């Protein structure tokens, strides 16, 4: 992939600014009508999805180069994909999200690197996680749970914890809870423990394509060896990497990929998991970008654009139009609705047009203030609909929401769905 591959796409932005708003018919208030944290915060058109397309095209044509201001523009973006959802309601040739990511590949290729990202990649290279935490401690979260070790034995389900859940102590209950619920349902679950490596999604997002390729190869091998039929993860980032990024680089995981909520919802339907009474609580659900609109399976396309009916452009063969409609939206909601005592109220920006938590795209690492600003926007929205707590199902979202609240006196609650399922 290179900008060259998007040459046609870059000339097809129509500059309509739909990329700055949630789908127009879904707007419920002026306050919560924006969809793009970057342009909402920084305002220059270059920060929007369409603006990045123009920027990319300008660089591609040699009209401009990557300056420090442009570098900042490129990386002050969570790559949350909301611009692409909005854009693809209008057209199908322009790909603002992919073009925005291509810009990062170009930055890395050209040696335009952010020190914070370099640190993260260094951590990955040394310890197979973006935090630089000791690899040897990666599996510690599972101590005492009795999970199979897929390095030695086969298991039907590979439980991929992901880096955040492996290392973040605050989220320990979530990952342990998730694994426990699977075990309690009588499932054959194994983990790679300290051998588990990062999915590489974060590396990919900040422009280090090669780094993710390595991780993809690793997990493919591991899956094969385990003889597993399912790969289940509680981490939305990993989920998205497996379903979207890996096919983008033509690495296919020949296994059914599920997020824990998909599985839990199925177990609840089958009666194999009975949610406990949580006590009365009004919650709202935050759709993580990587589980929702970026949780669709990516279908590679190597085709051409053909003309019919005069100048009408159609793809040959047919091409996936990524609008996020194939993401995971219902299972988490089903779960919440099934937990006694929980009342679910919806925010205004949900599902395909959910507002990002702020953590993605390397923003949390390099632009913490922007990351937390984005999170605070979301928390504001959650409160505005009368929720007492914000519930999500992504470790990165949870971390970022919690961090945004740390230095405030605000005791607004953030939960993972798994915590609510576990009960008190």
């Amino acid at each position, binding site marked *: 992939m290179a900008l060259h591959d998007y040459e046609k796409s870059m*000339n097809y932005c129509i*500059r*309509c600014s739909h990329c700055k*708003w949630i789908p*127009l*018919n879904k707007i419920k208030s002026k306050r919560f*009508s924006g969809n793009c944290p970057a342009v909402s915060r920084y305002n220059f058109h270059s920060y929007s999805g369409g*603006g990045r397309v123009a920027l990319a095209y300008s660089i591609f044509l040699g009209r401009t180069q990557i300056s420090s201001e442009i570098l900042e523009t490129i990386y002050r973006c969570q790559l949350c994909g909301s611009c692409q959802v909005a854009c693809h309601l209008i057209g*199908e040739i322009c790909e603002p999200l992919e073009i925005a990511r291509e810009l990062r590949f170009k930055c890395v290729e050209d040696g335009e690197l952010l020190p914070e990202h370099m640190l993260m990649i260094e951590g990955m290279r040394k310890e197979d996680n973006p935090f630089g935490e000791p690899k040897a401690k990666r599996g510690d979260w599972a101590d005492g749970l009795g999970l199979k070790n897929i390095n030695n034995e086969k298991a039907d389900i590979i439980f991929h914890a992901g880096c955040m859940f492996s290392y973040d102590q605050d989220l320990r209950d979530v990952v342990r809870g998730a694994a426990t619920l699977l075990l309690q349902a009588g499932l054959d679950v194994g983990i790679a423990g300290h051998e588990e490596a990062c999915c590489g999604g974060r590396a990919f997002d900040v422009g280090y394509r090669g780094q993710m390729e390595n991780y993809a190869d690793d997990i493919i091998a591991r899956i094969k060896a385990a003889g597993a039929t399912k790969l289940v993860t509680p981490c939305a980032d990993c989920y998205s990497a497996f379903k979207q990024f890996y096919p983008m680089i033509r690495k296919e995981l020949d296994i059914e990929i599920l997020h824990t909520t998909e599985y839990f919802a199925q177990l609840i339907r089958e009666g194999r998991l009975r949610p406990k009474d949580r006590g009365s609580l009004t919650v709202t659900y935050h759709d993580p970008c990587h589980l929702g609109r970026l949780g669709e399976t990516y279908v590679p396309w190597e085709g051409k654009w053909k003309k019919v009916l005069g*100048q009408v452009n159609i793809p040959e063969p047919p091409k996936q139009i990524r609008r996020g409609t194939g993401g995971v939206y219902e299972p988490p909601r089903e779960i919440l609705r099934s937990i006694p005592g929980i009342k679910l109220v919806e925010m205004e920006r949900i599902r395909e047009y959910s507002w990002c938590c702020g953590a993605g795209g390397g923003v949390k690492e390099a632009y913490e203030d922007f990351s937390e600003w984005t999170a605070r926007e979301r928390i504001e929205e959650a409160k505005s609909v009368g929720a007492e707590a914000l519930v999500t199902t992504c470790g990165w979202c949870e971390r970022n929401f919690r961090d945004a609240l740390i230095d405030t006196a605000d005791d607004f609650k953030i939960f993972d769905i798994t915590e609510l399922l576990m009960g008190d």
Partner: protein
Amino acid sequence: MDKNAYKMLESILGPDNVSRDPGVLDAYTYQWMGEMTGNDVTRFGPFRPACVTLPSTTQEVQSIVRVCNRYGLKFKAQSTGWGLYASPGEERVVQIDLRRMNRLIEINERDMYAVVEPYVIWAQLQVEAMRKGLNCVTIGAGSCTSALANCTSMMGVANNNVSMGYNERNVLGVEWVLPDGEIVRLGSLGSGGGWISGDGPGPSLRGIMRGTLGALGGLGVFTKCAVRLYHWGGPPDLPSKNIVSMDERLLEYPENIRLAAPYFENRINFEEALAKVGEAEIAYAVGLVERGLMTLGLGKENLESVELRKTLLPSLPKHIFVLLLIANSPREMEYQEKVLEQILEQTGGKRFEMVEEPGFRDIITLLLVKGGSAPARGVFSPTGSFSPILCGFFGTRRTLTKAMDDSEEIKKRYVKSGLLADDMGEGGWGPLVIDHGHMEYFENETLFDPNVPESIKALVDLTEETNTSLAEKNLVIPFLSQIKAARSKGLPVHDAIVPYMNSDHRIWQRKFKQAFDPNDAADSCNYIDWEEKS
């Protein structure tokens, strides 16, 4: 750009709100219709701004304008900035991006207006107004466009113009930073009387501000205005499921709303029925999407649209329009429906039931009330770009069908060349009737590929041919189409029109320009040159 001028802008706005990075500037140079200018088919227009500024208050706007006057720079303001109109028309133009001026200041329920800053979009205004039982005109360009820009500076018709009027008349008090940096507040606003009127004292300066079209940046910067709102008899919200327009379904179809899609044997009866609908004052919204356009752009994807051409076209009538009835009481609904049936009987109209069934009914109702993404999808997705011919054709009873016939005839020839999207010449869209029939409106959307030079040329040639044809028939020349054709050739926008006119408006318009913009600071590429150019 003069570095002192830049420093001054930085000190006024803060360094975070000014930029002259070429990449940032190119984001503003890239525009829809950029492909129609310059020497290549990229969407980059011919002129990069000197810098981009992001003011947040009227005072900051005023300061920017004063800096420009002082340093011999020009300026071009944009709100949502869609289209080449929003970009500079020459070198050394400071782009004023009004995105940070996005306050919805007030909704006055009894006097029925909203006070907005430039970056409040129609969708935002509408949702806040609907909560209070009020509504606004949401233009065909899309509800992602600026309410203020549409009312003060631009053009834009809407399906609900039939009941709520064209936005040239939907503006009350206005706050206006003139090109020399003075601030004038129109009407009651300037006299301490609030926003209630934009006219006076004495002669109304609204007459300088705009006609069918505004000055598109050529006469300064509008920083606030009061937009008229109207009664909304529907529910406070229209929640729907699914996000793709053709999949969108209302969770509940309101009881007091009805969609009808009558069709007719010929255009004469079609227009007669429209006129009667207007005179009977029953419609909330009226609209036309001709079948050629419908079967080009309304599928979930282009492939599906192309299929629709095969599967749907045979059953689509040619002379059809849709109308939405909204009643404030069951009695009123009964009356409206009875009148509609009578009109159809008188004009030989029949109802196209497919459109009135759930599914199409929801999609079209949402389109007529809210707009959404369907309009943009319909005209941009198939080929990547479009420009309406007859854009700005405000007609009346005897001229609407003439223009429809004329444009269709000419367009068919161009469509045959394969250089445009094949809509069979039937690419029409429009509210058709405005102000219950006192005006009629139609434009013919013409889809072309921005990557194909011959396609662009075909569009420009078609535009010029249709404009000339209308002029020679002594029909109104659609001015917005004219601007596009003129700019693609680097020509003054009014010069091609004036030879046909009995009154040379350029004289007076130029005098306004000279009087209010003594230093020629406001970029006039869409307005009129400060001096007549030979």
